[in-house]
């Protein structure tokens, strides 16, 4: 222990690699730039009052979205570095060790720090507005969730300049990740960063479950809920059941590493395969956690831009629920080759194929919704359309992988790599982008302009197929995942080179999205209607962005597509508040404690990462103090007077 401490102290700052030194310089410059800008424009107070202490779900959504886009950038740079290294045989851009670190951070960041905050951005931006609520069930807890995610992600991200990145793969299998084989602090960063953000994720699951079950507007029965809200409900159920399993697996591995236990070691009765088992009990359902909200988004987008009611609403609901149950029963297909026996593999083979059935039902329902619809090809709809073929291929290759005997051939090859990228990019990223374009006006009050958006769409889509189609073939030719280089006589060069070109095209696509956001900010056209797309659900009945109490008067719901039906009957003004109906609104107060709690968790995580038990314990004491502060707080809420609401509504032209 003492030895490893002096060792890690000597390597506290990662030095030597020019790429990392360049990153150091960039980090310092960007930080200085942010500090300077905030000071120059005197925005520190604004930052604290409006953002860091907020408990408003709409602002939390925006912070999640910004984090997700930044993490998409970092994960994307990791991906481009890997693809550059593999473009030609025997390249020396990255050493084997550096390559290991990069594929580890790429995978972990894209799943946990890009996809998760992206879906939470959508949850927060949409669900309360869609069900006619003024906030989530536990707004304070919602802020805690965000700051735990944020500081968990920060802890994970600083690893590459302080102490060294994790290098055990995003799956982090022991015994490789045990102290004996992986001494540095990198793996600790992984375990603690994920554990901290995992607490936030579980809390979000509970929060939205309670919100959807308890806080729907009167008249909105379960079967009148919009499909996005249904998808969130399914997602929360999965989160609630599987995220604790991940937390346990990570905690046990951490105890192995920090305190010399033997849960997953090769000796003293430990069993590394138990970690693999626990990891995938979470890891497979995690795919559905990420993709169900995307399915919900497609349902909203397809119905809106086809100007038709969604086809087969009840079968959509049944499919979501079926996926959230069956999706939890398929995890062994990630380690068929462990050799658990024919009965086990057969069972999980069949359950995996069974999950394709509800998914197929959903795809046909989207197609039938579009059939004879009046389709508008706006950006959200373009991404939804692109999703269908991409996900069909992902589903088909998934069924091949689900067959245990053939999986022995595909396991851990580029075939599998191509498959899950097809599912996660084609399913989740396309969905999140569709959702971002669709709800952007609701979140920010202006639409994103189409010009760069169309460029982004085509670059990203074409790049996507150019990048991953060759990888299927490479996998069948025997190329394994996580190889840092290969020799020319493998005949993999041409396909790898094409794949790298595709990756760069996707990179250009990302830059186009950034350009689009900047362009739309500069030439901003405010959305004054509140309903720029001709929407169907309740969020479009509000101004963009919605006032911080959302609904001055909670609406009474009678139809599934309430807003659409009201517009059809010409009764949309009935959803505007009448002055005499406006009462004082009870809202939670802003609080800096969730942010401070995140800081305390960060200190604790950083301490335990380096084995500094005292620092870690001090951080945890801070967490306890934050909890005590909340428990003893007698007035966590306040009332907005009815007059103020009348003024706000009048200013919005709604009275």
């Amino acid at each position: 222990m003492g030895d490893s401490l002096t060792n890690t102290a000597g390597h506290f700052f990662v030095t030597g690699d020019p790429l990392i030194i360049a990153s150091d310089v960039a980090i310092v410059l960007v930080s200085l730039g942010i500090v300077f800008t905030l000071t120059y424009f005197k925005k520190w107070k604004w930052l604290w009052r409006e953002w860091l202490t907020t408990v408003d779900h709409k602002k939390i959504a925006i912070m999640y979205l910004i984090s997700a886009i930044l993490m998409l950038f970092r994960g994307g740079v990791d991906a481009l570095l890997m693809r550059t290294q593999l473009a030609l045989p025997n390249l020396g851009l990255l050493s084997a060790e550096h390559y290991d670190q990069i594929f580890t951070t790429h995978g972990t960041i894209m799943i946990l720090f890009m996809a998760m905050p992206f879906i939470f951005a959508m949850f927060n931006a949409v669900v309360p507005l869609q069900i006619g609520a003024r906030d989530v069930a536990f707004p304070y807890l919602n802020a805690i969730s965000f700051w735990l995610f944020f500081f968990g992600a920060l802890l994970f991200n600083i690893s590459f300049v302080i102490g060294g990145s994790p290098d055990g793969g995003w799956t982090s299998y022991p015994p490789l990740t045990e102290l004996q084989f992986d001494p540095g602090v990198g793996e600790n960063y992984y375990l603690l960063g994920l554990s901290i953000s995992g607490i936030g994720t579980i809390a979000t699951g509970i929060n939205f479950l309670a919100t959807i079950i308890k806080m729907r507007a009167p008249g909105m029965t379960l079967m009148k809920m919009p499909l996005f809200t249904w998808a969130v409900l399914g997602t929360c159920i999965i989160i609630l059941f599987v995220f604790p399993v991940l937390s346990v697996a990570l905690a046990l591995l951490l105890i192995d590493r920090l305190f010399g236990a033997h849960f997953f070691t090769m000796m003293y009765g430990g069993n590394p395969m138990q970690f693999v088992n626990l990891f995938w009990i979470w890891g497979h359902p995690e795919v559905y956690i990420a993709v169900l909200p995307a399915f919900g988004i497609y349902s909203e987008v397809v119905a809106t831009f086809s100007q038709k009611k969604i086809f087969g609403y009840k079968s959509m609901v049944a499919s979501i629920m079926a996926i959230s149950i069956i999706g939890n029963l398929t995890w062994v297909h990630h380690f068929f080759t462990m050799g658990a026996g024919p009965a086990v593999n057969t069972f999980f083979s069949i359950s995996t194929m069974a999950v394709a059935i509800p998914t197929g039902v959903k795809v046909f329902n989207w197609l039938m919704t579009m059939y004879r619809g009046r389709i508008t090809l706006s950006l959200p709809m373009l991404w939804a359309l692109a999703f269908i073929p991409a996900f069909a291929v992902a589903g088909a290759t998934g069924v091949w992988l689900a067959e245990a005997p053939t999986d022995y051939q595909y396991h851990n090859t580029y075939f599998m790599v191509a498959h899950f990228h097809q599912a996660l990019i084609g399913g989740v990223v396309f969905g999140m982008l569709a959702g971002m374009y669709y709800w952007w006006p609701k979140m920010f009050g202006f639409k994103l302009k189409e010009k760069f958006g169309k460029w982004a769409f085509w670059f990203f889509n074409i790049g996507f197929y150019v990048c991953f189609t060759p990888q299927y073939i490479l996998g069948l030719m025997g190329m394994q995942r996580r190889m840092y280089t290969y020799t020319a006589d493998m005949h993999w060069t041409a396909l790898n080179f094409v794949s790298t070109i595709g990756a760069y095209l996707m990179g250009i696509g990302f830059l186009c999205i950034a350009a689009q956001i900047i362009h739309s900010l500069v030439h901003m056209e405010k959305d004054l209607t509140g309903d720029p797309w001709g929407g169907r659900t309740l969020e479009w009945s509000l101004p963009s962005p919605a006032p911080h109490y959302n609904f001055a008067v909670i609406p009474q719901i009678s139809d599934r597509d309430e807003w659409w039906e009201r517009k059809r009957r010409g009764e949309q003004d009935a959803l505007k508040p009448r002055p005499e109906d406006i009462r004082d609104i009870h809202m939670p107060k802003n609080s800096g404690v969730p942010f401070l709690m995140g800081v305390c968790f960060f200190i604790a995580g950083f301490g335990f990462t380096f084995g500094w038990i005292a620092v870690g314990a001090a951080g945890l004491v801070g967490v306890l103090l934050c909890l005590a502060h909340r428990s003893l707080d007698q007035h966590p809420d306040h009332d907005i007077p009815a007059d103020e609401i009348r003024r706000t509504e009048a200013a919005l032209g709604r009275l």
Partner: protein
Amino acid sequence: MSMVRPPALERAPGQARFPWSHVAGYALSIVLTLAAFWAVLGHALPTKPLLAGILLLAVLQILVQLVFFMHVGQDSKPRYHLWLFSVAMFFFVVFVVSSMWILTFNTPIS
């Protein structure tokens, strides 16, 4: 009247009693955890009875969590609770039993 917190989750004014049941549950869950830890660390029993013992402690732990923190059976309308509780129990059994099944390695390869 709070519109933000659902009525069922709201803390009614004047009812801020000391949460004895939470403290009791907290103490019990710590005692049960430490008991399991002590039994394993000190090899208090031979292997098989030891496993049975910590399994029993785990079941007790679940009961403590359900009764003291999740207030099972204390809601006037238990429909959602019953549904979620059944699903939770289903997954609990599936995860535990199938993990044991999977890691028995009932195969000639192992």
